[in-house]
């Protein structure tokens, strides 16, 4: 897999999402729960806006000094016996990890909590080189069995229901019990335990890497990360270049924001922190430790107007409030990063060619911007993307270009504008019935396909105004 997750067209993806009643119901009720949780937790914290401000400042400061902190981080990790590798591209990252796995002659790799490994397509790369990769996170494991991409960044299998999960287990693993959540979970646990115990290499993502100490922290709800980070002898952390914070205190602020913004919890069930390889006197931890820091397009974003997109702490608050996401689902974004942040990030990482519709799949309602705990101006960044698509990439439709040129002339010329307020009603007459247009021409078609359009009034405001002014003059009022 890579950032892009499929080949079907935007239009088909939208239709597929809208037609998927089950998915929409599931998303809608999850959004309702998460949103309520977030709001009540934010309220309990009291000064939510101050916290957001602090979170945003920490992220800004880190990104502005990212060279310094990356250097500090790698020094700390190496001091503790770890190896650090900076990967410019997905290929470089995969190659490095493949080599580690090969050297160990590892047959089984367990993985947890990592979107960046999805982004770089690590599973495929490892499988090609002969290792079996097992996702240890329940949701991700289900998707892996079913060969389905994630649709949400916190609850990746949000689009699947119990029956579907039961079927997947039955097909792929001979499961023969009911679809009760308890039985399903017990089965998954039993299956996964075998993998944990027999894996040679553990790979995890990273919520925050702490520059001052070289520690990697993971925020999880299942605790499987503990297994992945403590059982296998060889340990690899894969992190996006921006996922670091200067200090433990900074991490505390961001974790508070993350857990509250994500699902409305004060804390998640588990925060795992680990540092480098096992030292002489320590009883657990890996013998061999590697930190792979992935750029894959991120440094291109630094220093641009999109820099704040790298603030993202992957909490999914923006996704959980997004009405577009609610109706089309995560797969419609054709990216492992769905929702508003996906619409912003995907074209930055993977270019506009395959994703030029994404920045337009938003009504710019700004609910995402309001929800984001690290203050990324998401809806404004979508407008910036549109500007680039129009002005730099020249990828907007010709008919639209002509229309917008016309708009500029119309709106910068009061006489032309005034004329249009006079003739609009007459111009739409052929399509007007009972003061409404139900089947509009040209650009109105998209509108009237789904709702009626009111006919322009008998008299424009400005016509009324000048009549009124004249009347007042005649009455000697002026």
């Amino acid at each position: 897999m890579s950032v892009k997750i499929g080949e079907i067209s935007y239009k088909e993806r939208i239709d597929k999402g809208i037609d998927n009643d089950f998915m929409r119901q599931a998303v809608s009720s999850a959004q309702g729960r998460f949103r309520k949780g977030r709001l009540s937790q934010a309220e309990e914290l009291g000064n939510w806006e101050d916290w957001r401000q602090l979170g945003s400042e920490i992220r800004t400061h880190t990104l502005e000094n990212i060279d310094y902190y990356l250097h500090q981080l790698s020094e700390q990790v190496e001091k503790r016996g770890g190896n650090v590798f900076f990967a410019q591209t997905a290929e470089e990252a995969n190659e490095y990890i493949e080599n580690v796995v090969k050297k160990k002659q590892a047959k089984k790799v367990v993985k947890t909590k990592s979107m960046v490994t999805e982004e770089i397509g690590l599973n495929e790369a490892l499988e090609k080189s002969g290792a079996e990769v097992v996702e240890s996170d329940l949701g991700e494991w289900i998707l892996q069995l079913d060969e389905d991409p994630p649709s949400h960044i916190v609850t990746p299998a949000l689009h699947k229901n119990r029956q579907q999960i039961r079927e997947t287990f039955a097909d792929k693993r001979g499961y023969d019990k009911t679809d009760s959540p308890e039985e399903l979970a017990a089965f998954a646990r039993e299956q996964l335990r075998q993998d944990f115990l027999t894996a040679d290499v553990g790979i995890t993502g990273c919520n925050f890497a702490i520059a001052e100490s070289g520690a990697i922290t993971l925020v999880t709800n299942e605790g499987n990360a503990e297994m992945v980070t403590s059982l296998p002898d060889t340990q690899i952390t894969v992190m996006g270049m921006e996922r670091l914070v200067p200090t433990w205190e900074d991490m505390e602020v961001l974790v508070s924001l993350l857990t509250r913004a994500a699902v409305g919890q004060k804390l998640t069930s588990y925060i795992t922190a680990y540092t480098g390889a096992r030292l002489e006197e320590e009883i657990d931890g890996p013998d061999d430790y590697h930190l792979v820091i992935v750029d894959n397009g991120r440094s291109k974003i630094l220093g641009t107007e999109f820099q704040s997109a790298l603030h993202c702490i992957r909490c999914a608050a923006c996704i959980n409030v997004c009405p577009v996401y609610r109706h089309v689902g995560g797969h419609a974004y054709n990216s492992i990063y769905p929702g508003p942040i996906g619409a912003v990030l995907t074209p930055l990482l993977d270019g506009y060619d395959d994703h030029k519709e994404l920045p337009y799949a938003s009504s710019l309602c700004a609910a995402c911007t309001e929800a984001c705990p690290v203050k990324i101006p998401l809806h404004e960044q979508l407008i910036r993307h549109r500007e680039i698509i129009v002005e730099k990439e020249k990828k907007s439709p010709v008919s639209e270009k002509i229309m917008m040129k016309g708009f500029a002339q119309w709106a910068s010329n009061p006489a032309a504008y005034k004329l249009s307020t006079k003739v609009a009603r007459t111009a739409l007459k052929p399509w007007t019935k009972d003061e409404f247009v139900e089947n509009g021409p040209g650009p109105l078609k998209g509108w009237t396909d789904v709702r009626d359009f009111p006919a322009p009034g008998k008299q424009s405001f400005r016509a009324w105004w000048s009549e009124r002014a004249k009347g007042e003059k005649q009455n000697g009022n002026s």
Partner: protein
Amino acid sequence: MKVSLFITCVSDIVFADVGKHTVEILERVGCEVDFPAAQTCCGQPAYNSGYLQEAKKSMKQMIKAFKNSEYVVGPSGSCVGMLKEYPHIFKGDPDWEQPAIDLANKSYEITQFLVDVLGVTDLGSTFKGRVTYHPSCHMTRVLGVKDAPQKLLQSVKGIDFVELPVKEDCCGFGGTFSIKNPEISREMVKEKSQHVSETKAEYLVGGDMGCLMNIGGRMRREGKDVKVVHITEILNTHREGGIA
């Protein structure tokens, strides 16, 4: 107090009544109202579609039109919100940055102007009917006008006001979004229409004609007879028994 009307393009062409109510309300509270005829559109349709150069042409026209105004007041949170973005759009432009800042600083949405500038929360209006209110996204999130419309509505005598469920959700208008992505827009407005029905309100009130045109157009298509009205229409009503 001298107030220049900013009658947005949709109100000018499609809903002239909104402009008339705005004039009457402002005059009732003692403002001297004028209408600079050189005004056109705030530029939002082009700006939000990524056509910055085209948008700027209409924005410059607006800056010129209101150059001599003391206050600029309009009946649309979204369009006034657009004026507030001008300084950031013209940042660094030696000819236009300062005029853009001046325009942004003196511009207000009508309910915001009444409540925050004039301190009026009760216009002495009377209205009988069950009313619910849709707070438009740009009015609340971009312009930051949250309480003013509700305060004014709740002071209307005789009104039976009922909250709209999940009112902060977008109605799916989004300007050109409603034309470019009609399928997604349809699902959003269907949901909004459903929420309006749940309130059993006879009137849906809002502060932005774009959104109201969207919700109203959808409800008409669905055969629902909820009346969709701009907030100025309620505030300017002294009749009992509602709007004809």
